[in-house]
């Protein structure tokens, strides 16, 4: 029956039926919540009562003026720092594993392994590593003679806890970045290297003048992902420290969730979400701008 229709009718029918549900879901679960979020952010809604009192910009004023809220971003900063280190380590291993090397597949396999591990299981695994008295990290440090360092409370010291947590992120995602960098290295044409060799370039010059510039778009992409990732951290501190000690490892998203679901302040939580959304959109916008200006195809 379908086959007897003209292609024009078929086309209309296909467009309509194929898009109806997917676009409906997109509107329902992405745009409708976003629109509602904007509305809530101007109200004092508590999450359940029928009336939603309008408070204008009050929630936004609170987000930016209350150092308790905005200051949480300083905790996220640790994840950004560790993210940068993570990318540097990933580039290093990618370059090494892209050269001729015995056992490189085995090394790649092992270094990528953490990425496919379940995040919550990894979090608890590191809970064990960082445990002050029974933890393997402190026992290891003591066994190599660093007794004083081996008494550190990695997750209980306010200044340190975010870096301990963020290093778990480094452990888990370094291999992911590495695999992406390896793929970008393999896309560099071999003859450029041949030419450089003929011109007498040494290994360092080759890396600095050929490898790195050719990896630039991918490095940029990964760095932007590092920024947005650092802004959106949630799982790890939530599972491992519940934001403690005394809120020292609470991240921004965790604060949003608490504000909404624990303190029933949906209005303020919505305004906080909008602020985060704005930051992420700004970073992604900048990324598109920088990457398209780089003129690397598309």
């Amino acid at each position, binding site marked *: 029956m*379908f*086959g007897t*229709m003209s*292609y024009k009718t078929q*086309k209309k029918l*296909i*467009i309509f039926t*194929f*898009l109806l*549900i*997917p676009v409906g879901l*997109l509107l*329902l*679960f*992405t745009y*409708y*919540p*976003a629109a*509602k*979020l904007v509305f809530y952010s101007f109200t004092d809604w508590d999450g359940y009562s029928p009336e939603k009192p309008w408070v204008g910009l009050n929630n936004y004023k609170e987000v930016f003026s209350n150092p308790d809220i905005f200051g949480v971003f300083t905790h996220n900063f640790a994840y950004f720092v560790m993210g940068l280190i993570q990318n540097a380590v990933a580039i290093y291993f990618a370059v*090494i594993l892209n050269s001729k*090397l015995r056992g490189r597949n085995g090394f*790649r396999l*092992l*270094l*990528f*392994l953490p990425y*496919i*591990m*379940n*995040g*919550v299981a990894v979090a608890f695994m590191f809970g*064990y*590593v960082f*445990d002050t008295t*029974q*933890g*393997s990290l402190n*026992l*290891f440090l003591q066994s190599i003679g660093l007794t004083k360092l081996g008494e550190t409370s990695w997750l209980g010291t306010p200044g340190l806890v975010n870096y301990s947590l963020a290093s778990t992120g480094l*452990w888990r995602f370094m291999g992911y970045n590495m*695999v*992406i960098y*390896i*793929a970008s290295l393999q896309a560099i044409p071999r003859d450029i290297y041949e030419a450089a060799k003929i011109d007498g370039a040494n290994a360092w010059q080759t890396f600095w003048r050929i490898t790195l510039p050719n990896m630039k778009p991918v490095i940029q*992409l990964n760095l932007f992902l590092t920024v*947005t990732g650092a802004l*959106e951290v*949630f799982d790890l501190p*939530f*599972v491992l420290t519940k934001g403690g000690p005394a809120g020292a490892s609470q991240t921004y*998203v965790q604060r*949003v969730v608490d504000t*909404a679901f624990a303190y029933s302040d949906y209005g303020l*939580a*919505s305004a906080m*979400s909008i602020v*985060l*959304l704005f930051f992420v959109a700004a970073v*992604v916008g900048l990324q598109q701008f920088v990457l398209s200006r780089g003129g690397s195809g598309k």
Partner: protein
Amino acid sequence: MNAKKFNVFDALKYLTLLIGVFVVLFPPYVVIVNSFKADEEFNTASTMALPKSFFNFENFRVVFERGGLLSGFANTLVIICVALVFNILFGTMVAYVLGRFEFKLKKPVFGLYLFATVIPSITTQVATFGIIKSLGLYNTLGAPIILYIGADVIQIILYLQFIRNIPFDLDENAMVEGASLFRIYRSVIFPLLTPATSTLIILKTISIYNDMYTPYLYMPKQSLGVVTTVLMRFQGVNIANWNLISAAILLILLPTVVLYIFLQKYIFEGVASGAVK
């Protein structure tokens, strides 16, 4: 590379690689050895020591019995399978329409999908929560399933990139033979999108298996645990019993690690092609 000579740089390369491997394997090593230790052995022996026997499965038995691990695995599997089927279906359908036809609303629809990648779904949860509740999906498997299907656009982006490389001649040839547009989708486009589909399956399976946020928020009910929430609950009632928790961690890690060993080639390819847009 000619005559193999001992080289300081090569030594340095291997040294750093070995340090990297040590750092990667150290935490899982501790978890593995302690998961086989009975309570008494755990309290007396060193954390780093090998267990007396690798055949002491007592801890694993306790995890299965008390932790509700089986239903956790079952729920996770159901969610992954249903979400994947619809992701593949809707992803290929939208890519077919947007990649092959010209129509008035094409640009706006395309724009909606592109802009959606900018909106992190973690920021809109406060509002999404109300929608899930009013749909009556709160505390059902339907909540994570519909969110993984509806609130994620990666599959559309992935398929759209891929469909561009399928030559139009194939569609035209099929039309000359009188195939309907639906048939072209089903018998030409869909099969040729298989590489993208396998990438999608890998990326989605990993991300759903790992997701804690969605099931934690939308399915607090005891019987609806998935691997992540089951593990969290188990840890909550067995704090500091690291030998038991280690056994639970190991059981949760095992499925993806086994898949990884068998599918490593596809996983590397999937990750690389999923990231480089």
